[in-house]
């Protein structure tokens, strides 16, 4: 069975990956822009926040710096696509590749430790809470605020224009929407969220590492698809909620899989489990609906 600490740990990581799932909702679902920049902007956020923190910056300012760095990375991907006409997927791979070098440059070495530094979590440990509950509380607040802000944005005039851009670009242009600018804004916001997630992850884990971004896109996508299977995304609100719920369920599933002794899985099997879970998350909704249609056909 899952220990209390493992449970809170899974929820904590789930909340961070919920932010990544928001980002992937914006790029994949709203803009129909398959963006792999994420694997680079996650460690970018961690690197920027980490370096700023060890240089004595306020951790919240460092986190804001990480958001801006992520937005810049996203803007580069979108500009490669919109202005230079490079295929969106390829544009994001190019940025991701470049970010590996940039992240090494920012940190000056492959990883930096933040164990004894002042982080956004530090003041919260003074609260009368168990050590492992603190990050869950803070990240819940961050995730909730992000959820509300994103929801309001998607309902705003600009947000609606962005949704129209992804759904029907020709119609959007005819309505006077600068679709190129919307793609740049959307992919920038998306990667800003990933930068935020990377910064929080580094601060809660106590380290930033250049390889920490590997597979983040897959985890985010798994959270998004899993969440959509649980909460049908009929409205923007439900779609955003599905991101958070999906990410937490995903992390809990991983934690259970690793903790179940009967399965004999070890930490190094994480990526294998991820791939299996993503496959299931993609296949199951289809399988379920075809099963339902088979059953209803039999009834008829």
């Amino acid at each position, binding site marked *: 069975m899952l220990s209390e600490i493992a449970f809170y740990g899974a929820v904590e990581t789930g909340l961070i990956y919920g932010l990544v799932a928001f980002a992937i909702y914006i790029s994949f679902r709203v803009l129909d822009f398959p963006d792999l920049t994420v694997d680079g902007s996650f460690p970018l956020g961690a690197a920027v926040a980490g370096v700023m923190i060890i240089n004595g910056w306020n951790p919240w300012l460092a986190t804001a710096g990480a958001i801006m760095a992520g937005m810049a990375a996203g803007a580069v991907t979108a500009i490669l696509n919109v202005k230079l006409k490079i295929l969106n997927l390829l544009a994001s791979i190019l940025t991701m590749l470049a970010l590996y070098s940039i992240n090494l440059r920012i940190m000056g070495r492959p990883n930096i430790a933040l164990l004894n530094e002042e982080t956004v979590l530090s003041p919260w440990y003074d609260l009368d809470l168990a050590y492992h509950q603190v990050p869950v509380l803070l990240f819940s607040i961050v995730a909730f605020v992000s959820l509300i802000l994103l929801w309001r944005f998607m309902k*705003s005039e600009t947000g609606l224009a962005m949704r129209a851009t992804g759904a029907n670009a020709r119609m959007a242009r*005819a309505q006077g929407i600068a679709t190129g600018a919307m793609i740049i804004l959307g992919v920038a916001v998306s990667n800003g969220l990933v930068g935020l997630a990377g910064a929080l992850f580094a601060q809660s884990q106590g380290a930033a590492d250049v390889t920490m971004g590997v597979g983040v896109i897959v985890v985010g996508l798994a959270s998004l698809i899993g969440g959509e299977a649980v909460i049908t995304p009929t409205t923007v609100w439900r779609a955003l909620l599905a991101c958070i719920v999906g990410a937490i369920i995903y992390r809990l599933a991983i934690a259970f899989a690793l903790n179940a002794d009967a399965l004999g899985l070890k930490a190094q099997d994480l990526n294998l489990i991820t791939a299996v879970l993503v496959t299931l998350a993609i296949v199951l909704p289809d399988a379920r609906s075809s099963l339902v249609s088979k059953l209803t056909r039999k009834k008829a």
Partner: protein
Amino acid sequence: MIRATDLRLTFGKGTPLENPALRGMSLTMAQGEFVTVIGSNGAGKSTFLNALAGEVLVDSGQIVVDNVDVTKLPTHKRAARVARVFQDPLAGTCEGLSIEENLALAIKRGQPRGLTSAVKKQYLGRFQESLSSLGLGLENRLTDKMGLLSGGQRQAVSLLMASLTPSSILLLDEHTAALDPKTAAFVLRLTTQIIEKQKLTALMVTHSMKQALEVGTRTVMLHQGKVAYDITGDERKGLEVKDLLALFEQQRGLEIDDDSLLLS
């Protein structure tokens, strides 16, 4: 006033598929004129419409809309002056958005969009009023997804969206061609109603010669990328479909003559 002067546009220049779509296309439309455009396939009807909308930029020539030179402007920068209904009923609306969200997109056509709520309470009365004029009961379905509507309903809403804010010209691109005859007649009737009521300047591309003569105030026939025939007023009233057909055949005959000259 809309003035297109000597528009020229060649697709695939310098390739074996080089296709001169517009070859000196000129047309001046007065305020309040409703022009129907006909022509055989490849005559340049759609290209002309796309050039006016900004979806394609012409190689040479000039397009002036209400004294503003829009020749080099992309679609979204012309949108304040140019409204459009597409041929494909699915193209003019977003199926994933609700009816009120689609209308909210249209009510801000060509205007800057901010961070305030897109579907504002003060819009709803106007949305319901204009939707009820369609007589389809859509005024009670504001929050329904656009994708739930039939093609005809969606085309009617597209038309409504195009006329929700003032424009210098309304472009209709064979917007009844993809509908069944009964729905097509309904959408066409709605079109003429809206254009007359709001005194819009409109340009309608059509495949139907009957439609081209019955609707609007002026008919233009395109051939090989320019105006071949332009009739208005009393002369137009006396014209019948068979007269137009004769004109068509005359042109086709010329083409055949050209070919035979080439082959001999």
